[in-house]
Every structure is written in C-alpha cells, then in structure tokens.
C-alpha cells in the first residue's frame, strides 16, 4: 500500500512537471521579448531537474540547477541586456512560408522519434554499476566512475573550458 502511494505520487509529479516543461518551452519559442524567453528557459531547466531527481540522479539535478539554470542563463540575460534590441523587439514575429515548412519538417521529425520510442521497448546492454546502494550514494558513484574510467575525457573537458574562456576573452576584446 505504501509503495502504491509512492508510485502514485511519482506519477503525479511526473505528469505535472512534464506539462509545465512543455508549456515553458512553447512559451520560450513564441515570446517576442528575449528576456521572457530566457526566464521560461530557466523554468524549463528547473522542471527537467525535478525529472532527474525522479530518475534518482541527484548529482545531475544539482549540476543542472547550478550550471544551466544559474550560470548559462545568467550569461544569456547579461548579453541580452548588453545588446540594444529595441528595433528587433518592435519588428515582431513575421509569418513566412519557410517557417511553415520548417515547422512541418520538425513535426515529421517528432513523429519519427515517437515511432522509434513506442514501436519497440528500448534495448541495450544492462550495466552493473547501478546497484541499490549506488542509488542512495549517487554523487559518490558518479565520482568513482568519473575519476577512474572517464579520467581522460574529464581532462580533455578541462582543456576545452580553458580554450573557450580564452576564446571568449579574445573575441570580446575591443580592436586596438
């Protein structure tokens, strides 16, 4: 009985959060003002973080809130404030046939994804590193895999971040 109630609450949380995230992403695409779009992007990221917790990945949920909803969107909002977009705001959303065609192509793309997911249950090699103990110690388990099996990609990512930082500084420097 207690398990039933737990699963029921998982369903309720999943359905509510899924609805809010779809709504937020639709509003993100349709709002005229880029600041509103950025705030709906934050809402969408927070909803997806809740979904990560529902999937027992606390580490990625925290990283999602800190890096995506915190750092990246803050950077986007800063750049929107830096640029003077008054002219583009006044021009509004214009309709054109290329947009209609693009939307239809994207819908076909979605039908493809939907068919691939629903037609057959997803298959793959069952791993062994996800024991019931790991579910409660998710951060520890992620760290163990990250610093043993994935150490080399981890170092490559650090180089990538340094290169991106230097590139951003050089790009935004005023020409002398």
């Amino acid at each position, binding site marked *: 009985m207690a*398990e*039933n109630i737990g*699963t*029921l609450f*998982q*369903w309720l949380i*999943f359905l509510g959060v899924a609805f809010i*995230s*779809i709504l937020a*992403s*639709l509003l*993100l*695409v349709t709002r005229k003002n*880029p600041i509103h*779009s950025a705030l709906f*992007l934050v809402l*969408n*990221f927070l909803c*997806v973080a809740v*979904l*990560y917790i529902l*999937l027992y990945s606390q*580490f*990625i949920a925290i*990283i*999602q809130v800190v*890096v*995506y909803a915190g750092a*990246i969107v803050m*950077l*986007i909002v800063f*750049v*929107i404030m830096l*640029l003077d977009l008054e002219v*583009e705001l006044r021009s509004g959303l214009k309709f054109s046939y290329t*947009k209609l065609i*693009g939307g239809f192509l994207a819908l076909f*793309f*979605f039908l493809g*994804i*939907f068919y691939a*997911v629903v037609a057959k249950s*997803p298959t*793959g090699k*069952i791993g*062994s*590193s*996800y024991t019931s103990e790991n579910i409660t110690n998710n951060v520890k*388990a*992620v760290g163990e*895999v990250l610093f043993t099996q*994935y150490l080399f*990609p981890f170092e490559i*990512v650090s180089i*990538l*971040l340094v*290169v*991106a930082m230097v590139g*951003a500084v050089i*790009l935004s420097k005023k020409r002398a």
Partner: protein
Amino acid sequence: MWVVPAIPPALFLVLSGILFTIGVIGALTRRNAIVVFMCIELMLNSVNLSFITFSRFLRSMDGVLFAFFVIAVAAAEAAVGLAIFVMLYRSRETINVDEINLLKW
C-alpha cells in the same frame, strides 16, 4: 490488490522528443540569434534527459557521465557563442540571423 505501475521509460523518452522538437521548431523559425541559441540549449537539455533515462533503466552509470560532459560542452559553447554575438552586434548593429550571411566583410 491493484498495483500502480512504475513510470515507463518510454514516457520520459517521448517527453524528451517533444522538448527536442520544440527546440528544433524554435531554431528553424526564430530570427533573433540569442533566441536561436536558447533553443539549441533546450535541445541539448532534452538529449541529456534521454541520456539519464537510459542510464536509469539500463542500470549503468555511463549515461550520467555523458550528460555531465554535454553540460560542460554547453557551458563552453555559451561563453564563445555569446562573445560572438557581442562582437557581431558591435560591427553590424544587428543579431538577426537573416542579415548575418557573410563570414567576412
């Protein structure tokens, strides 16, 4: 006694597909470069969701690590991309992607 079934992975994957498709529609239809950029972030995020779903239901930690690397690359992309937008705005006074069609001017 009636037992409530657990949430199937297909629902998470369909949600991920819906978010990805909305991101594709936005990237194809919007003309403001920053909004296009946000739609690309949305697409990366939905791919992360499907990585985590597979990691959970295949009981393997690898998907979590891949999502971690995707987030790191997205952060690097954000820094460089936004610097490019600032530079474009300085030289062209616009970030409309229809008007930015030359690599050099």
